[in-house]
C-alpha cells in the first residue's frame, strides 16, 4: 500500500480543479499554475522511478482500495517496468506540451494577420490537459482491468474536447471520428471485460489474479478479439487507423503530441500486457495475422506518408508506420523484440513529439500546414530547422538516435524469434526493413522541401525560435540523443517485465533473452 | 335461459304490431303531394338544411352524458352491494347468510365519499348548471 501512485494521479486532478476555478481573465496565471503542477508531477514521477527496484517484484508501489465491491471492482494501481517508463514518458511530455501550447488557446495569428485559431477559454484547455495527464498516469498504473477500462474510455473525453474546440478547421469532424472509433473499440472491450469477469468467476478484476484464469482456448479467442480490436483501434493499426491522421492533423500541436506520443501507446501497452498475458493461447494463435497486419501498416504508413503534403498528416502516417513496428515487436514474442517494442514506445514518444512540436512551431509561423508553402526555412531560422532536422532523423531512426536502438531490437528480435513459424517472422522482419528506406525517403524529402531550396516569400518574415520554444524542444532532443547512445537504464527497467510477460505467455527462449539483455 | 322466452314472445308481439302499423301507414293514407309539406318544419321559414349526421349542438349535452356515465357506474357498484348487504333469512326467520355487515358498509361509505368529492368538484366548476 504505497500512496505514491494515487498521489501521482491526485495532484494533476487537484491542479485541474484549481485551474478551472481561477477567476476569469487570469489566463497567464492559469498557464503558470498548470506548468507548476505538471512539473511537480514530473518530480514525483522521478522520485517514484528512482525508488523502483529493478530486481524487485513485478508490480511495485501497489495500492489497492475497494471501489465497487458488488462488482468486485477495486481501485488497484501498481507499476511494472513498462508502465513506469510510460508514466515517466507522459510525465515528461506534459510540461513540455504545456510550454509548447502556451499560446495555442489564445488565438494564433499568422504572419499575414489572418486569424488561424480564434480565441478560446485558456483555463478549460489547461485544466483539460491536467485531467488528461491524471488519466494517462492512471491508465498505465491500473492493475485492475475494470479501472483500466474506465480510464481508457474516460481519457477520450478531455482529448475529444481538446481536439474539438482547440483544433484546426476540420476539428469537429476529426474529434467525432476520433471519439467514435475509440468508443466503439472500447465498448467491444467492455463486453470482453465483463465476459472475462463472468467466465473467470473469480469475482475480481485484479490483473495478477486473472492471469491464466481463462483456459478454454475458444473463450480465449473471443475475449482476445474483444481486447485486441479495442487496442488496435487505439494504437492505430491498419486498417482501423484512419482516425489518427485527421485527429493528429487537426489537433493543436500540444494535443497532437499527447495523442500520438502517449494515448496511442495505451493500445500497444494494452496488447503487451493484457492481450498477451491474459490469453496466451489465443495470442499465439493469432500471432501470424496480427504480424501481417503490423507489417502492412508499417509499409502502408510509410508509403502514404510519402504522398502527404500536410506536415502533420505526414507525421501522423509515419507514426502509424512506427506503431506497426511496435505491434510487430510485441507479437514476435521474443525477449528482444518485446523489449524493443517497449523501448520503442518511449522513444517514439520523444521523437514524434519533437517532430510534431517543431512542425507546430513552423506552422504557427506561417499558418499553413502545407509543405509546399515553405522552403528555405533554414536560411531564415537555422535553429528551428536544426531541431526539425534532428527530430526528423530520429523519426527515421538514424543510428545514434534513440529510436534506432528500439527499431533495431524489434527487427532483430522478430527476425530471430524462433518462437514459432520463425520463417514467417523472419520474412516479416525483412519486409519491414524496407520501411526504413521509405522512412528515409519521406523524412528527408519533407525536410528538403521545407527547409532547403529557395526561400519562399512568406518565409522571409519568420522569426527564429524564442526561448520558450527552445526550452520546449531542447530536452526532447537531449533525450533522443541520450537514449540513442545509452538506452540501458530504460532497458534494465523494461527487461524483467518483458521476461515476466513471456513467462506468462509461456514462451521463453533463454538464448535470445540473453542477447536481448546484452544489447 | 328459458326465463327469457316469454320476453321474446312479448317482443315478437309488440314488434309485430309496431312494424305492422308503421308499414301500413303509407297505404291507408291518401297521397296529396305538396312541396311545403315535405320540408322540415321551422315555423314557416325556409328550413335551414341540417348537415348529414345532425347539426352541431351544445357541448353541455356531452358533459351531461359523461356525468351520467360516472354516476351510472356508481350505481352499478351500489346494486350488488345493496342486494347482498342484508342478511338473508328464509321464511322461518332463520339466518341463511349473514350479510356483508359493517365492513361492506364502511367500504361503501368510503366509496361514496370519493364519488362525492368528484361530485363536489363538478358542481363547483358549474358542471351541473345548465345555462
Amino acid at each position: 500500500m504505497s500512496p505514491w501512485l494515487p498521489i501521482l494521479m491526485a495532484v494533476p486532478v487537484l491542479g485541474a480543479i484549481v485551474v478551472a476555478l481561477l477567476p476569469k481573465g487570469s489566463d497567464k496565471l492559469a498557464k503558470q499554475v498548470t506548468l507548476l503542477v505538471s512539473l511537480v508531477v514530473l518530480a514525483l514521477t522521478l522520485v517514484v522511478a528512482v525508488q523502483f527496484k529493478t530486481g524487485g517484484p513485478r508490480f511495485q508501489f501497489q495500492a489497492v482500495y475497494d471501489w465497487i465491491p458488488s462488482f468486485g471492482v477495486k481501485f488497484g494501481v501498481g507499476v511494472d517496468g513498462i508502465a513506469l517508463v510510460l508514466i515517466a514518458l507522459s510525465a515528461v511530455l506534459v510540461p513540455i506540451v504545456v510550454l509548447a501550447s502556451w499560446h495555442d488557446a489564445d488565438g494564433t495569428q499568422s504572419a499575414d494577420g489572418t486569424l488561424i485559431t480564434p480565441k478560446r477559454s485558456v483555463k478549460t484547455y489547461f485544466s483539460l490537459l491536467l485531467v488528461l495527464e491524471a488519466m494517462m498516469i492512471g491508465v498505465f498504473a491500473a492493475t485492475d482491468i475494470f479501472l483500466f477500462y474506465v480510464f481508457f474510455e474516460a481519457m477520450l473525453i478531455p482529448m475529444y474536447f481538446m481536439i474539438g474546440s482547440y483544433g484546426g478547421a476540420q476539428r469537429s469532424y476529426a474529434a467525432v471520428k476520433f471519439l467514435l472509433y475509440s468508443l466503439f473499440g472500447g465498448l467491444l472491450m467492455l463486453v470482453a471485460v465483463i465476459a472475462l469477469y463472468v467466465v473467470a468467476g473469480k469475482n475480481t478484476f485484479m490483473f495478477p489474479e486473472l492471469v491464466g484464469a481463462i483456459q478454454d482456448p475458444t473463450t480465449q479467442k473471443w475475449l482476445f478479439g474483444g481486447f485486441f480490436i479495442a487496442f488496435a483501434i487505439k494504437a492505430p493499426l491498419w486498417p482501423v487507423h484512419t482516425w489518427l491522421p485527421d485527429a493528429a492533423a487537426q489537433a493543436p500541436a500540444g494535443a497532437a503530441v499527447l495523442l500520438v506520443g502517449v494515448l496511442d501507446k495505451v493500445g500497444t501497452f494494452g496488447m503487451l500486457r493484457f492481450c498477451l498475458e491474459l490469453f496466451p493461447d489465443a495470442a499465439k494463435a493469432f500471432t501470424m495475422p496480427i504480424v501481417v497486419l503490423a507489417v502492412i501498416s508499417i509499409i502502408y504508413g510509410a508509403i502514404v506518408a510519402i504522398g502527404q503534403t500536410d506536415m502533420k498528416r505526414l507525421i501522423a502516417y509515419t507514426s502509424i508506420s512506427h506503431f506497426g513496428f511496435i505491434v510487430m515487436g510485441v507479437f514476435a514474442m521474443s525477449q528482444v523484440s518485446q523489449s524493443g517494442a517497449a523501448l520503442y514506445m518511449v522513444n517514439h514518444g520523444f521523437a514524434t513529439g519533437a517532430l510534431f512540436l517543431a512542425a507546430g512551431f513552423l506552422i504557427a509561423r506561417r499558418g499553413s500546414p502545407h509543405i509546399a508553402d515553405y522552403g528555405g526555412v533554414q536560411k531564415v531560422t537555422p535553429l528551428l530547422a536544426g531541431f526539425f532536422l534532428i527530430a526528423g532523423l530520429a523519426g527515421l531512426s538514424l543510428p545514434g538516435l534513440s529510436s534506432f536502438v528500439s527499431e533495431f531490437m524489434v527487427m532483430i528480435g522478430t527476425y530471430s524469434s524462433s518462437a514459432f513459424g520463425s520463417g514467417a517472422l523472419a520474412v516479416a522482419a525483412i519486409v519491414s526493413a524496407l520501411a526504413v528506406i521509405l522512412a528515409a525517403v519521406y523524412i528527408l524529402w519533407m525536410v528538403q522541401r521545407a527547409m532547403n531550396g529557395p526561400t519562399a516569400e512568406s518565409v522571409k518574415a519568420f522569426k527564429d525560435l524564442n526561448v520558450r520554444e527552445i526550452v520546449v524542444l531542447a530536452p526532447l532532443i537531449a533525450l533522443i540523443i541520450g537514449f540513442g547512445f545509452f538506452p540501458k537504464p530504460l532497458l534494465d527497467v523494461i527487461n524483467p517485465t518483458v521476461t515476466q510477460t513471456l513467462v506468462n505467455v509461456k514462451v521463453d527462449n533463454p538464448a535470445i533473452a540473453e542477447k536481448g539483455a546484452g544489447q | 335461459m328459458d326465463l327469457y322466452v316469454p320476453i321474446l314472445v312479448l317482443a315478437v308481439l309488440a314488434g309485430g304490431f309496431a312494424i305492422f302499423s308503421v308499414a301500413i301507414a303509407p297505404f291507408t293514407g291518401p297521397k296529396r303531394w305538396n312541396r311545403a309539406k315535405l320540408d322540415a318544419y321551422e315555423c314557416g321559414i325556409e328550413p335551414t338544411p341540417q348537415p348529414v349526421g345532425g347539426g352541431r349542438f351544445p357541448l353541455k349535452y356531452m358533459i351531461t352524458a359523461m356525468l351520467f356515465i360516472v354516476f351510472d357506474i356508481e350505481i352499478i357498484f351500489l346494486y350488488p352491494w345493496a342486494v347482498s348487504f342484508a342478511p338473508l333469512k328464509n321464511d322461518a326467520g332463520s339466518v341463511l347468510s349473514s350479510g356483508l355487515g359493517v365492513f361492506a358498509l364502511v367500504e361503501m361509505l368510503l366509496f361514496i365519499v370519493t364519488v362525492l368529492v368528484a361530485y363536489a368538484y363538478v358542481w363547483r366548476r358549474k358542471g351541473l348548471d345548465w345555462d
Partner: protein
Amino acid sequence: MTTHYLVLSGLLFAIGAMGVLIRRNAIVVFMCVELMLNACNLAFVAFARQNGNLEGQIIAFFVMVVAAAEVVVGLAIIVTIFRTRRSASVDDANLLKY
C-alpha cells in the same frame, strides 16, 4: 358453451382491433377500442362461468369502470382537438412526424 362465448369475444376483439387499425375517424377508432374492452368483458365472464369463480365477473365490473373513465377522458380530448381542427380524422393529425 364457453367456447362459443370465446369465439364471439375473439371476433369482437378482432373486429375492434381491425377497426382501430383501418378506420380514420378518431371517434370511430375510439369506439372500436371500447368494443375491444367489451370483448374482454365477455371473455372474462365466460371464463368465470367456466372456472366457476366470481373473479371474472368482478374484473368485468372494474373493466366497465375503467372503460367509462376512458370514455370520459377520450371524448374530452377528441372534442378539444375537434374544436381546434374542425375534423376528427386521424389523418389530419399530421403535425407530428419524424
